[in-house]
């Protein structure tokens, strides 16, 4: 893309303060940004790096509780910091548009898509209502939405999440802006949906020559979208380079470490002895069937990954195993012995031997209990230890998860995301289980922290011989740590086998689509994939 075109946006030495703990902190510590017309710039970094704050600042906007303290933000010759709020409002929605992470929350459920799509361009007087509606339909078609002539008459709840995200991009483009800011627009979508949305966005941006800032924490995604990538950390710029240079030769150690996460590798191994087996399990919530005829086997000391998009029945399978949802048919065998279907009929020993780790460590730990109580409780409850023996065991477990005794008296609110998840792991280990169900345990975490947690889980498996059921939608994680893979789609098992077998062709239709939809860390992947997927994606992903 052109980097020699004229400059659209410059931000120089921007400092933004945020208010927390009753004082002002710097969240952005003097960052420079230069964006040319028609160029796409990617912001990447962990949560808390200041990506979104910086993106909003490009519109001259600071969230409540934030303020732009110094620096210069010039958009097409207009100084946004010095301009009046009124002047800035004139630009927003007209020449600068914003696409938020959650389209479902950004649309007003009481109005149709079309009404909302044309609203800003009509209000800013750029187009008349009928012109805008005409243009919106054109954009719907450009965004690859089904039935572009009539889809605008639907309400937000009548279209899927992926379609809504595309409608939101159409909304942003409707006023023919010079700059669009995308803030994690595909993070909430399934991979198979994400690839379509990305393709539609990319195409629309290219066709209309719009400049964009693309904010994400997913490297592979930014590699598809951006011409240049800026890496941010702790509110400071780490480095900036054209995408292909950044991918092939990152300079800064921090950037290198971000790239390295995807390098965990481990060969898949099978095992003869089965710890747990689901046999032809059928389960339903009320009358809604969720699992149909599902059979899964977990070998001792190995990791079985359950993959599939949301709604495929992965988490329901976990609920059946733990006894929270007794199945309608079929049985769960633990060491070749049938487990009682309902939780209340299981013995304490049954409960001890199957433990669970949740996606969100925030809600999985009681915010009013200290680490000592959280980890100590299973030690008391299952193993009957008392007093000092409990403390000693807690200390041992803290050592196992690479933390130390100073964490004993902390509350969950005083820990970072990665530490919280480690405490949850320790709580599961405290019961000395045979099987741990990990439900999306890394998906709420940043790349580096993810890597740490995955390495820890692998180390613990080697040391303690515990088996994992790893529920995830992230194929990269599966490649890293799984032995066997179970692919699920709409409540059925599509395929099950050793990791290497599943990941090498030939694939059944759905597995093929799923694997092909995972963004790769190379430029031009998106274009290739879209061609390759061809007609198949229309049928499978929009279903």
């Amino acid at each position: 893309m052109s980097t020699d075109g004229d400059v659209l946006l410059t931000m120089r030495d921007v400092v933004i303060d945020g208010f927390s703990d009753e004082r002002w902190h710097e969240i952005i510590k003097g960052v420079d940004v230069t964006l040319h017309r028609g160029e796409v710039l990617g912001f990447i970094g962990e949560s808390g790096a200041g990506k979104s704050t910086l993106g909003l600042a490009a519109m001259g906007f600071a969230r409540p509780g934030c303020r732009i303290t110094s620096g210069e933000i010039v958009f097409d010759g207009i100084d946004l910091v010095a301009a009046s709020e009124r002047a800035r409002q004139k630009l927003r929605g007209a020449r600068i548009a914003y696409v938020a992470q959650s389209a479902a929350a950004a649309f007003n459920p009481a109005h149709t898509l079309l009404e909302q799509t044309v609203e800003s361009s009509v209000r800013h007087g750029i187009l008349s209502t009928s012109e805008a509606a005409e243009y919106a339909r054109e954009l719907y078609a450009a965004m690859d939405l089904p039935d572009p002539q009539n889809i605008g008459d639907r309400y937000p709840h009548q279209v899927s999440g992926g379609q809504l995200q595309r409608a939101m991009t159409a909304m942003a483009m409707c006023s023919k802006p010079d700059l669009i800011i995308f803030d994690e627009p595909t993070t909430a979508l399934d991979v198979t949906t994400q690839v379509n949305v990305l393709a539609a966005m990319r195409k629309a941006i290219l066709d209309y020559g719009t400049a964009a800032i693309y904010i994400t924490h997913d490297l592979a995604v930014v590699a598809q979208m951006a011409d240049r990538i800026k890496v941010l950390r702790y509110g400071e710029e780490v480095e900036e380079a054209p995408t292909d240079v950044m991918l092939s030769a990152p300079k800064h150690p921090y950037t290198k470490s971000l790239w390295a996460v995807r390098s965990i590798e481990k060969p898949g191994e099978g095992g003869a002895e089965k710890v747990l087996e689901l046999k032809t399990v059928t389960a339903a919530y009320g009358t809604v069937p969720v699992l149909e005829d599902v059979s899964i086997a977990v070998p001792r000391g190995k990791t079985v990954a359950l993959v599939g998009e949301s709604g495929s029945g992965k988490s329901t399978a976990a609920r059946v195993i733990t006894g929270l949802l007794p199945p309608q048919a079929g049985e769960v065998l633990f060491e070749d012995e049938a487990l009682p279907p309902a939780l209340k009929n299981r013995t304490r020993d049954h409960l001890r031997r199957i433990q669970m780790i949740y996606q969100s460590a925030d809600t999985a730990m009681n915010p009013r209990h200290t680490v000592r109580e959280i980890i100590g409780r299973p030690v008391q409850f299952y193993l009957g230890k008392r007093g000092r023996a409990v403390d000693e065991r807690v200390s041992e477990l803290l050592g196992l998860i690479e933390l130390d005794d100073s964490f004993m008296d902390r509350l969950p609110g005083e820990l970072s995301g990665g530490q919280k998840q480690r405490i949850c792991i320790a709580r599961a280990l405290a019961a000395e289980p045979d099987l741990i169900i990990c439900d999306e345990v890394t998906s709420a975490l940043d790349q580096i922290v993810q890597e740490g947690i995955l390495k820890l889980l692998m180390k613990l498996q080697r040391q303690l011989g515990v088996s994992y059921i790893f529920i995830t939608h992230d194929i990269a994680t599966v490649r890293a740590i799984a032995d066997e893979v179970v692919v699920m789609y709409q409540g059925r098992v599509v395929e099950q086998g050793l990791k290497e077998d599943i990941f090498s062709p030939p694939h059944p239709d759905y597995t093929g689509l799923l694997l092909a939809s995972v963004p790769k860390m190379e430029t031009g992947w998106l274009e290739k994939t879209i061609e390759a997927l061809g007609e198949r994606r229309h049928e499978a992903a929009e279903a």
Partner: protein
Amino acid sequence: MTDIPETYSATAEVAEVRTRRTWRARAWIELRKAPVSAWFGLTVIVAYIFVAVFAPLLAPHGEAQVFPQPYAPWSPMHPLGTDQIGRDVLSRLIYGARNTIGIALATTFLAFIIGGGLALVAAIARGWTDQILSRLIDVLMAIPSLIFALMLLSIFGSTVTSLIIIIAVLDSTRVFRLTRAVAMNVVVMEFVEAARLRGEGTWWIMRREILPNIMPPLVAEFGLRFCFVFLTIAALSFLGLGIQPPTADWGSMVRENASLIQFAQYDLKAGITPLLPAAAIALLTIGVNFVVDWFLMKTSGLRDEH
């Protein structure tokens, strides 16, 4: 650019290692930041408790000691005069603090044990248990509580015990509603599911998992409920069905001395006398509300925009 360590260590992620302050130290820090209204409320409450506890030492005369002259004017012997049968008003005010506050506290505690306990059971069990308990409470709430209380008191008689139990049961309906609502939000959290998966019993889940997380609204409600119970008792006493003579309490003191008000045109102080117990009730109610307001502001995170 800053130097960034190349190795990742989970321990180093949050650098500040903090030791937990004792609750006393934390309470003191909070108190020092408290607004004037909260300090005022706390002072009032502490003063009332002091008076209630040390009533026999503070009162110049006995609670039911009768002097020859009824409706005596204020004098050094009887600083606030005497009532319609010649009992010292100041002494009865002081003893009244003990009786009225004591009974109101006991009633509020009982209401919370009944209402809160049932609400937690309903929230945890859900399904039929929840339905039956909730509808039962709805039926109780549908009947105007003061009239219902009057009816029950005339059936069971106005003893202190029946007074406490009846008001507690009637007030527990509101406690139930609130506790169930806030507990429902906590019950769906994953840590409660985790406790269930661990095999914990209902009692543990109630006490250890849910209760600590719903304490702030409950404490605030306790303060408000206390005021309402207090007013209900005073109202019932004023109607003659509350605390029975010769036990001193503020509600009946207002009623017994109400006729003194017509002497205000001759002696202003005589006119003030029946208003004093009413003022005592009002002051305590205001004090408690100030403290509750402050507490709610501290715990709910509702603050003025900066």
